[in-house]
């Protein structure tokens, strides 16, 4: 009994430093955001007071919130499958017997190493009307200049392209590692049966990559709601919030308009959203995944 107690204490002591940091910088802010979302924003001499669900009512009636949320969902729905598909395609390519695949692997991975700010700057140049790479190429075929980042119909999609370009290489590394863990004689067994490449992918490779996909998916979802660097650098959410994402909106509300209580409310919504996605992934998808 005595030793079991001391083992417990010992264990807790070992966990303490990490736990303190987690509580101080993750859990406490979460709780305080939750609490603040029921308060008013303190202004000058007026301290914050309890306002119940008032902030949430504001949120429901806030058209910008809905627009930004829609943007963000659209952003996730496009970028996540696109970057995963691209990552798998690249991983399959550089995993094959290919001359210069070492170089290719590096090339595909490079965008991941670059900071998002740098990436955004590179793409700013590509998107520049008239002088930019894209318009120059379009010019060759007689296309006129397009203000890619400056018009509502294209701004958000430009951000998506940049995100996919940046994330795919990162995800590729995980897929590459997973592919190399697959027993090559599985493919040989399939080839003896005369399975087509598509059948092999659908029935062997894809299911065996499922644990990786789950992991990548979680990262991708978090990334879709967390990445704002490119928004800041490239569009500042404009024009008319057409390319604003949830986190960028929270940043604007909290640190540009200093409406901290409303920012807290938005934060709570974001957290609930992410939590829901995580629960879905860990329960439903996890059950359908084969772990080796």
């Amino acid at each position: 009994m005595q030793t079991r107690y001391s083992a417990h204490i010992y264990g807790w002591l070992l966990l303490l430093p990490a736990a303190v940091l987690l509580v101080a910088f993750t859990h406490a802010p979460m709780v305080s955001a939750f609490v603040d979302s029921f308060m008013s924003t303190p202004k000058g001499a007026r301290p914050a007071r309890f306002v119940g669900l008032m902030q949430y009512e504001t949120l429901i009636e806030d058209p910008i919130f809905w627009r930004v949320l829609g943007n963000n969902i659209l952003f996730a729905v496009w970028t996540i499958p696109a970057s995963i598909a691209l990552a798998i395609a690249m991983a399959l390519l550089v995993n094959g017997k290919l001359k210069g695949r070492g170089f290719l692997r590096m090339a595909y991975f490079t965008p991941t190493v670059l900071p998002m700010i740098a990436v955004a700057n590179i793409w700013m140049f590509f998107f520049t009307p008239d002088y930019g790479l894209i318009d120059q190429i379009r010019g060759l075929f007689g296309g006129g200049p397009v203000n890619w980042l400056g018009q509502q119909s294209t701004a958000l999609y430009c951000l998506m392209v940049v995100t996919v370009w940046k994330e795919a290489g990162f995800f590729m590394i995980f897929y590459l590692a997973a592919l190399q863990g697959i027993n090559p004689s599985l493919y040989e067994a399939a080839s003896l049966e005369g399975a087509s490449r598509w059948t092999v992918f659908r029935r062997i490779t894809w299911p065996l990559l499922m644990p990786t996909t789950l992991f990548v998916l979680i990262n991708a979802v978090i990334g879709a709601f967390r990445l704002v660097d490119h928004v800041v650098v490239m569009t500042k959410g404009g024009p008319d919030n057409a390319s604003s994402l949830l986190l960028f909106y929270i940043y604007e509300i909290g640190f540009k308009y200093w409406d901290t209580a409303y920012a807290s409310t938005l934060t709570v919504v974001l957290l609930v959203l992410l939590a829901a996605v995580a629960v879905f992934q860990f329960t439903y998808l996890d059950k359908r995944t084969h772990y080796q």
Partner: protein
Amino acid sequence: MRLGEASLSAIELRGVAKHWGTTRAVDGINLTARQGSLVVLLGPSGCGKSTLLRLIAGLEEVTDGSIRIGGEDVTKLPPARRHLAMVFQNYALFPHLDVRENILFGLKVRKVGAADRDRRLKRVAELLAIGHLLDRKPGQLSGGQQQRVALGRAIIAEQPVCLMDEPLSNLDAQLRQDMRREIRALQRELGVTMIYVTHDQTEAMSMADQVVLLRDGRVEQDATPAELYARPATLFVASFIGTPPMNRLALADGPHGACIKGAPEAVIGDSGGTGLVLGVRPEDMVLAVDSGDGLAGTVDSSEYFGADTIVACRVGTETALIRCPGNRLLPPGTPVRLGWNEGAAHLFDAGTGRRRSVD
């Protein structure tokens, strides 16, 4: 199907070679496997057994030579068009599919109808006694069960040729013996031609109709197990078959004929002995402690194995192992007399290693 020669030789290799740079994994192999026979590819590690099997399967491309299966030249055909099934050394079961799906994989790929599929699955499951395992994943099976599933996947294809690469190497001794018998019985029942790779001579001797002993990518001897044991073509074969393998005693010229090096008594009259090696199996040798007949020797050591005792004796400069029935533990240094049964002596050329007739 054509009658005549083609139907008799299910697999025919002519001058098959596989080189990787300067490595000659398989180097000009000729081999014929008769319809419905079990051919074992035997040899030490790295002699090219797996490579040869993979060449037959089409998983590797030949550097040279031709391969015929069922009378058809398949040298350039992809694996799927060679009409064969294969059991891999590590079984290569799909870890994410249950046993049923593993076994049915090939039939589904080939779009075999559901009714036909079910019928064949039922038969295979019965044959291998794995009916109760169909819903499990490979990870939930024991080694022996996985082996059966791999076998099932090969059998259900109903191909005329089945290739196996050391399918029993992961199993314990008891299970191995059981599976050996099962595979052999199954092969006979289904009438398939089987090429079976192993480096275990007991497996080869007990299962094969025909053993092809390989060494450094070449065929050392291609014969029935009995022939391989009774008339090894080379010193290498002699040293590979038998536990313990055949004694190889270097000969020299003696005063009355060829003698074992360092022991002047003639073992073969009227001939020189230099450059020859005498081969005698331990089980063909007789050892006497008190009688005066035979070659003089001294006991080096003896090991008791239950049914018999292996006694190591020094004769001249050479060492011979003798299998004695029962418990014959003799203290080292005991003087003994050695002899062997009529017709048990084999002669080999020391230089080339090839068999010589005993006159």
